[in-house]
């Protein structure tokens, strides 16, 4: 597609439930990143994919967070047993190549109640 597409755009979930967030990257962009944007905290790196592998997952805050990417394309970020502190906007970004800027999706706003 023309841009990075994320779904859902908004998600309200009860504490303790699992959620899946989806990212459809720009076709041909092999690098894919997940970030979390919390109020007053800026953007926090979560995980990086090159193709289907994740050589850098250093930003995942706990083992409740996991992500996968299939076919070098769609990626899903899964949060198990959600907590209120997981409430944030989750952003996906892809990159064309070395030295290029990222293209960000519009994000998924997750609210845990």
């Amino acid at each position, binding site marked *: 597609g023309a841009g990075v597409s994320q779904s859902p755009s908004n998600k309200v979930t009860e504490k303790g439930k699992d959620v899946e967030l989806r990212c459809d990257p720009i076709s041909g962009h092999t690098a894919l990143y997940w970030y979390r944007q919390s109020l007053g*905290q800026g953007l926090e790196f979560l995980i990086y994919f090159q193709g289907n592998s994740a050589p850098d997952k250093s930003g995942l805050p706990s083992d409740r967070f996991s992500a996968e990417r299939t076919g070098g394309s769609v990626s899903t970020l899964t949060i198990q047993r959600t907590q209120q502190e997981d409430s944030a906007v989750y*952003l996906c970004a892809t990159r064309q190549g070395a*030295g290029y800027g990222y293209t960000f999706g519009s994000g998924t706003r997750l609210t845990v109640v």
Partner: protein
Amino acid sequence: AQSVTQLDSQVPVFEEAPVELRCNYSSSVSVYLFWYVQYPNQGLQLLLKYLSGSTLVKGINGFEAEFNKSQTSFHLRKPSVHISDTAEYFCAVQTQGGSEKLVFGKGTKLTVNP
């Protein structure tokens, strides 16, 4: 590890005034430098980037930034702002090689008043 400091969390200015948003970074390796803008309820958009070459880079919407290696700074400037420039601005560094992940500052909220 890399880090980015945006010294001002909020900057209010009047329309047509000049503005400078400050950014300092720390890194033990060579980096690329970026400024992103996020308008209310929208995603992040690339404003400008420094990869190499001339230290003064020009971006969209009349913004420019100057890379200063000795001061490890990459301040963003615009000589005359408009109401429509009201947004949050993020400075970011990206390591050359490896994951090339972006490390962001916490953002500066620019508010342009009439």
